[in-house]
């Protein structure tokens, strides 16, 4: 419990990171969406699309953040020190996941409020459903953060984590344009968790949440990444 508390404390105390994670999506949202309040995009209102996209963008940064902390702790030799305490690895990971979501949640709420201020109107149940879909869809990114944290050197970390987020964001349509809307490339894009995260706004509005394909994509990504994370953890255990 103390571990969990300090994990969150350490996240919050990284003020610059916290401010950017919360602030950047808001700035981008207002900067782009305020001029396009009445536009339509991808078969839905642009503010709804872009609000979802920016919520995804900010939350992705938030959930890969534990990876950054893991890499820093590793470079300081602290991971080895923790391995020789009674703290279990799964307790540590659970605390890090909780801290990641605790950081992602205010990002979602702030971007949703910004969306509402630009005329996005959803039923209360739909707001909750949208938030729920996003939180579930972020799971593969949480795991990706762990993998990178255990594997890549701390001086390549910013590029590694930032690169992964930007790449998935770009391919998923987060930046307000899609690389393809039909054909083989589109089929590939539809296999990415970030694509379905961005689509969550539209599908929620249509009712019924995600199609089965979205759930499968999220589940497969998670299922593939989990053993990779376990492997990365064990690799970092032998002589850091």
């Amino acid at each position, binding site marked *: *419990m*103390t*571990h969990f508390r*300090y994990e969150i*404390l*350490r996240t919050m*105390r*990284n003020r610059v990171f916290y401010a950017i994670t919360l602030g950047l999506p808001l700035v981008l949202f207002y900067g782009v969406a305020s001029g396009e309040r009445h536009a339509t995009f991808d078969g839905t209102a642009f503010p709804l699309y872009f609000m979802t996209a920016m919520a995804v963008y900010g939350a992705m940064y938030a959930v890969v953040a534990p990876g950054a902390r893991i890499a*820093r*702790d590793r470079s*300081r*030799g*602290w991971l*080895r*020190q923790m*391995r*020789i*305490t*009674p*703290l*279990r690895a799964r307790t540590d990971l659970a605390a890090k996941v909780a801290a990641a979501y605790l950081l992602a949640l205010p990002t979602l709420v702030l971007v949703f409020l910004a969306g509402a201020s630009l005329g996005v109107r959803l039923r209360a149940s739909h707001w909750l459903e949208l938030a729920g879909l996003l939180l579930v869809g972020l799971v593969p990114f949480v795991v990706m953060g762990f993998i990178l944290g255990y594997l890549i050197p701390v001086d390549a970390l910013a590029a590694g984590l930032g690169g992964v987020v930007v790449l998935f964001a770009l391919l998923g349509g987060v930046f307000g344009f899609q690389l393809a809307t039909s054909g083989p490339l589109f089929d590939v894009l539809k296999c990415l968790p970030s694509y379905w995260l961005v689509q969550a706004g539209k599908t929620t509005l249509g009712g019924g949440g995600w199609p089965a394909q979205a759930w499968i994509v999220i589940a497969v990504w998670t299922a593939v990444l989990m053993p990779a994370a376990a492997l990365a953890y064990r690799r970092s*255990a*032998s*002589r*850091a």
Partner: protein
Amino acid sequence: MTVTTDAGFGVVLSGLAKSYGPVHAVRSVDLQIAPGETVALLGPNGAGKTTTIDMMLGLTRPDEGTVSIFGAPPAAAVRDGYVGAMLQTGSPLDHLRVREQVALMASYYPHPLPVDDVLQITGADEFSGQWTTRLSGGQAQRVRFAAALAGDPDLLLLDEPTAGIDVEGRRDFWQAMRAVTERGKTVVFATHYLEEADAYADRIVLIARGEIVADGPATEIKAQAGARSIRATLPSVEVGALGALPGVRSAQRHGDAVLLSCTDSDAALVALLAAFPDARDIEVTGGSLEEAFLELTAAGEAPGRPTTEAVR
């Protein structure tokens, strides 16, 4: 998995060996440590001290042999909170204050010491509100010591705990250590400072090239190295004849004086006086631990034998 852990068993290393590729970091280490003992692992850099400690902690898996900590494998002993350690690496966490860091470590253990006590014992109470990233080398070392102590473990493993610390800091550290050993804790520390091993350990285990070359109290190690020597004025006697005396390992001549290094100085002296009654100005000197150290760690480095540079 339930493993009965009992501090009465002490620590037993049997047949430990570990190689990194072609490098034999630890060749064959057998060691039994009784509960409450303070043992120094003394040896030059690359002797295999850190690898041995890492295997005792379960951080490194031995190629051969076993480690038993209070009757349990290392992982179980660590999980049950019997072990605290100061590794060579392991600076405190960022975004935490000193007190928080110690409290965090304490929270992992089933029966921790009160945080205030730990801070006071280690002298970290003077800067307990400081950010862990803003500490001097000596302060960071105290925090790492406090972190190792916080869980009140029965076994403390310290890997070169005073490396890079000034003389005053070292003295303070060992003063705090005294308070810990007096509480009946088992302590194993690695060092390459002879005086530390001599002054603070009940027992010295001398390690060189991945093997234990001597094991016992400091006085015994000095004797084992046969570092006593006899000096006498004795002109016109063959050095070879002196070298053949019982208890003498080698003899050298310096002008009129001869110097006998002895394996048994008592027997050598009796034999010397019996054979050469005209020997004068006789001096028997006990060797220093430093001589014993150099002698024991150098033994076996005969030419022709492949030298292995052990990694940490």
